[in-house]
């Protein structure tokens, strides 16, 4: 959507806001040392408690990303005892992660026993049945990476679970689950799309930050010669 760039220039952005955006991003992604330097450099107020939390959270997420779901679960239980109970889906995903690791390292008997003990109770609820079936199907193959279920081994999956865990822990400690930066980009994209739709533009191109920034470099007089003329919105 083409707007007169001067409209943008009229909007003031406070330092406080920008600092908070950056801080929220750093905290969300557990960059503890960067947080400390940033606070020093900008002089903003240090948020309460968060540094210790960051460390613990960081460890948990790292274990999850490495595939060590059991350790991640253990630490999560220490940090937030009823978190997993309240987030059954997440709990299931973490346990599945462990199961998948066992299968990947060819420890099938262990995997079967683990599934019988930890996963089958979930089978009582209909929503987990299909997921359980997919997991169990892995056991049927001697080379599961080549089976129809190979997507269960993907790194993307692990990252998604880790990210979900991160959000759950943040929510539990009353911090926002999404960083402000994420939220802003999401907002811009949605608004952009909505406007495009209203003006009948086809396609749902996502908002591209890079392109947006590039556009701003062009000088205003080139495309919008006369001052004061309202752009056809």
């Amino acid at each position: 959507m083409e707007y007169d760039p001067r409209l943008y220039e009229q909007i003031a952005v406070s330092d406080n806001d920008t600092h908070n955006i950056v801080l929220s991003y750093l905290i969300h992604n557990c960059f503890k040392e960067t947080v400390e330097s940033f606070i020093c450099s900008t002089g903003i107020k240090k948020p309460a408690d968060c540094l210790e939390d960051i460390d613990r959270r960081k460890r948990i997420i790292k274990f999850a990303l490495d595939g060590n779901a059991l350790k991640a679960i253990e630490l999560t239980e220490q940090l937030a005892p009823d978190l997993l109970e309240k987030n059954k889906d997440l709990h299931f995903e973490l346990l599945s992660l462990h199961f998948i690791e066992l299968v990947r390292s060819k420890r099938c008997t262990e995997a079967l026993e683990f599934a019988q003990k930890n996963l089958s109770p979930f089978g009582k609820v209909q929503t987990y049945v299909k997921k359980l079936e997919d997991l169990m199907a892995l056991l049927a193959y001697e080379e599961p990476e080549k089976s129809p279920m190979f997507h269960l081994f993907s790194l993307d999956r692990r990252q998604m679970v880790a990210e979900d865990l991160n959000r759950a822990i943040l929510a539990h400690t009353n911090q926002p689950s999404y960083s402000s930066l994420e939220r802003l980009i999401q907002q811009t994209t949605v608004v952009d799309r909505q406007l495009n739709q209203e003006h009948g533009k086809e396609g749902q191109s996502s908002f591209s930050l890079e392109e947006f920034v590039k556009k701003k470099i062009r000088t205003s007089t080139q495309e919008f010669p006369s001052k004061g003329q309202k752009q056809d919105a």
Partner: protein
Amino acid sequence: MGGLEDGLPPSKRLRSSSAGSSSVLSGSTAEEQPIAAALFRDSMAQILQCQGQEETIGSRGLIKRIEFVRLISDALYALGYKRSGACLEEESGIPLHSADVSLLMQYVLEGNWDEGASTLHKIGLEDETIIKSAKFLILEQKFLEFLEAGKTLDALMTLRTEISPLHVRTSRVHELSSCLLSRSVNQNGLSCNGSLKAKLRSEVLDELQKLLPPTVVVPERRLEHLVEQALNLQRGTCVFHNSSDWDMSLYTDHHCGRDNIPRHTSQILEGHQDEVWNLQFSHEGKYLASASTDRSAIIWEVGKYGEATLKHRLCGHQKPVSQVSWSLDDQQLLTCGAEETVRRWDVSSGKCLQIYEKAGIPVVSCAWSPDGRSIFAGFADKSICVWDLNGNELECWKGQKTLKISDLEITGNGRKIISMCRETAILLLDRETNEEKLIEEDQMITSFSLSNDSKLLLVNLLNQEIHLWTIDGDVKLLAKYKGHKRSRFLIRSCFGGLDQSFIASGSEDSQVYIWHRGSGQLVDILPGHSGAVNCVSWNPVDPHMLASASDDRTIRIWGLHEANIKPRVLQSNGTHHCNGKI
């Protein structure tokens, strides 16, 4: 005779030869299956020739001896005559199953799965997919039996190393994998719970047999099936078949004589003073209603031995009565005056319960709704409407839904209304979906009637043909019946007889015509009336009783036996005259 010098009985010799031919075959590809089957046949043929027996039997050389004998052996075993079966195999030298197949069956019943799976390669199967499917069956049973015995790890091994590599039935493999979980916890919703239980080994054998081609394993009870097929064929072609199937025997071809068709006048009913236009038996066959130009309708009661007596004369209409319609419980009767009104009568008392009309618009046809709570009527203004029993109008369809002289039928489930919408078309209107289907003819349609099961419609045409249509699902023409005469008047036809396998119709030449519905063959022509026969009705409960209504003012009842009749005036017991005023 070559081959007999070794002194072994023929069956032993056979085993070795079949083993020999199978080993030749096991290396070939799927394309060579016909060749393999031919080789099997040829090896058998060689054996037969050695024994001096012909390859084919029967007067037309259509039956192969090998197949015939194997079917008989299978039939003997199925009947439980094991010794006879074995004896036949030995004496004829034709084994029911090759030795390897017998071994395979034995292994399956014993639970010797690994041996069974490997025997599959030896029985002369060429199609790789069949071998794999058969192996899958066997190994699946192995897996399930392990599970039942609690040997989960063994089951897991079987699944991973033996079943999975077959690369068939992937979704079933996944299901079996899920079954590994259910060992201890019984209540989860995993899909395999239903099929977790291992089948009986005999069931596995049955499934295996169905999978294997007939040259290897004869289809179970094939001889029985062939005989039943022949019997069904005979029954189908018997055009006079109007009695139960118990009479069918294997000794002679089934052939009913004419004596099962009601073709003799057993009674003449003289109650009307003018032409009788319409008549219909009640659903239970205990009553007969007739409608006449003398402006009355008569309810006749059918006695225990089929004798009909006048029960009530229903007077009140000011115009000729054109139609009668029985309620489903046979307690009430609707009569329709031609372009006049509809009257509802109580059968036991003969009283008129209600008159139905629409101001200024004459009624031309009427019908009960199957639930007995409403009445359908067609009008001279081409609309159809529904009344409740009190005369309140419930629904109305306007437009060209019906014609001046027409029939109206409602299907048994109350869903479809059938009426003539044009001279050459019948409308099937679905009340729920408002969908309209048409039966279109080239000629003008004069009348139609619906079968008991509401699936078939009989349509009388101007050109003296009767057409049979199926209306259940797709609308299609099934058959045509010809022979009767119709040139000026409205003639009606009906279904009847056992399973409604006959069509009967009136005719202007004063005769009743009967056709076999399936074959279209004209079965009989019944003379007797002295005027055009307008309508016929077959007793729904007694396949040997037919009634016909004629311009000669009489109704004839037709049955199996000639009766001693002189036309005489029947005394009615307590004629009930109703003056029509309620």
